């Protein structure tokens, strides 16, 4: 029998070893695998390469793993909300690879889809193009970009089932679906885990084939970076 359901975050991440390459879903603090990050803080694994659009804030998200010096390298599109990050970077303690957001998303998608390289116009003529092949198609210049894959992908979904199918909520979807497909082992933490058959097959965002481990997470904080509201009157 296929059993993807595990007890929780501690079991999920226990075989993540030093120097592993991880993908972590989320955009800012929206849709991040909070439980898995907490569990990684406990295992103390070191030398991680983290592929994630952002790097969290000082006291939440990947920021927590930066504080504990567990991260060797970040591959991101924007890392601006984190003072400890800046300190480590300027001190040469942290490597950073900055990638245009659309290129990052597509490289991850390509990793899951078995497409080793593709062409994109983003970054042509800029320093992002350095060392990359440039080619013209239909009168426009493009850069060749290669896939990204990871040893483990840590994704966060709204609902999941025991077959590994996932449904995300709102803009918490973001990078999670592509990362789910690009991890050699994909760990999904969900707010609600239901038996196979309870999700409508037509509404599933990530088919279960991409998910190797799934558990229902606990105590989601879902912190908000910019709480903007419309006043009543």
């Amino acid at each position, binding site marked *: 029998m296929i059993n993807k359901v595990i007890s929780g975050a501690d079991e999920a991440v226990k075989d993540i070893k030093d120097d592993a390459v991880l993908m972590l879903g989320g955009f800012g603090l929206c849709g991040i695998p909070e439980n898995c990050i907490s569990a990684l803080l406990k295992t103390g694994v070191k030398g991680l390469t983290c592929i994630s659009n952002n790097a969290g804030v000082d006291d939440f998200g990947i920021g927590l793993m930066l504080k504990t010096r567990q991260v060797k390298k970040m591959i991101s599109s924007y890392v601006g909300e984190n003072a400890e990050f800046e300190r480590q970077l300027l001190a040469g303690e942290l490597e950073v690879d900055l990638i245009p957001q659309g290129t990052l998303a597509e490289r991850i998608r390509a990793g899951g889809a078995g497409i080793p390289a593709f062409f*994109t116009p983003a970054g042509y*003529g800029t320093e992002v193009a350095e060392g990359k092949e440039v080619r013209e198609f239909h009168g426009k210049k493009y850069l060749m970009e290669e896939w990204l894959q990871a040893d483990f992908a840590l994704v966060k979904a709204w609902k999941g089932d025991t077959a590994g199918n996932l449904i995300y909520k709102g803009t918490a979807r973001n990078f999670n679906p592509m990362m789910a497909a690009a991890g050699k082992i994909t760990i999904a933490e969900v707010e609600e885990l239901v038996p196979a058959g309870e999700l409508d097959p037509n509404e599933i965002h990530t088919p279960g084939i991409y998910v190797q481990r799934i558990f229902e997470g606990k105590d989601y904080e879902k912190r908000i970076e910019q709480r903007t509201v419309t006043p*009543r009157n």
Partner: protein
Amino acid sequence: MALDKIGIAKRIAQEVKDGSYINLGIGIPTLVANYIPDDIEVVLQSENGLLGIGRFPYEEHVDADLINAGKQTVTMLPGSSLFNSSESFAMIRGGHVHLTILGAMEVSENGDIANWKIPGKMVKGMGGAMDLVASAENIIVAMQHKSRSGESKLLKECSLPITGIKCVKKIVTDLAVLEVMPEGGFKLLERAPGVSVDEIKEATAGKLIVEGDIPEMKI
């Protein structure tokens, strides 16, 4: 008198065409949404995965799972749709988003834009800016004509690392509306109310093209 940020946003709002899909950058561009005329319908795209950005939520409707690319809590509108980041940039790269409005540190007279990196300062990353400027068919820059230290931001060549080449079509500053010509040069289209052509000339380091009478903006 030079425009304030709201004045720049109001003037850019006049550029918006009915029925278009638009991506607004952080800062002044975000303000543009507030000044689009009621008879013009546009759909705002947020590159983190939302088409049809609504207003900020009432306090009791704040949802951590619904934010824009500036990480602000937002709402959806009737007809909104949600998608992943790969699909979002497929939309952008594929030319389905008609107009991108974004800020800049510098623009060159051939349409290059620099807005992501200042050597010597902490580099935060380009986010989605490089994809947006490499892809949109129409790019309008909203910025001050001069930097805080008084130097022109409309240059012959960008001095800062660029975000994209030959992509900016129009610039709206506190002083003027300018078109970037295909053959190079900033063509002066309109002056801010009470601002003279000479003031604009003085504030523009790149090639300024002035032909005939230059009307004042109507805001």
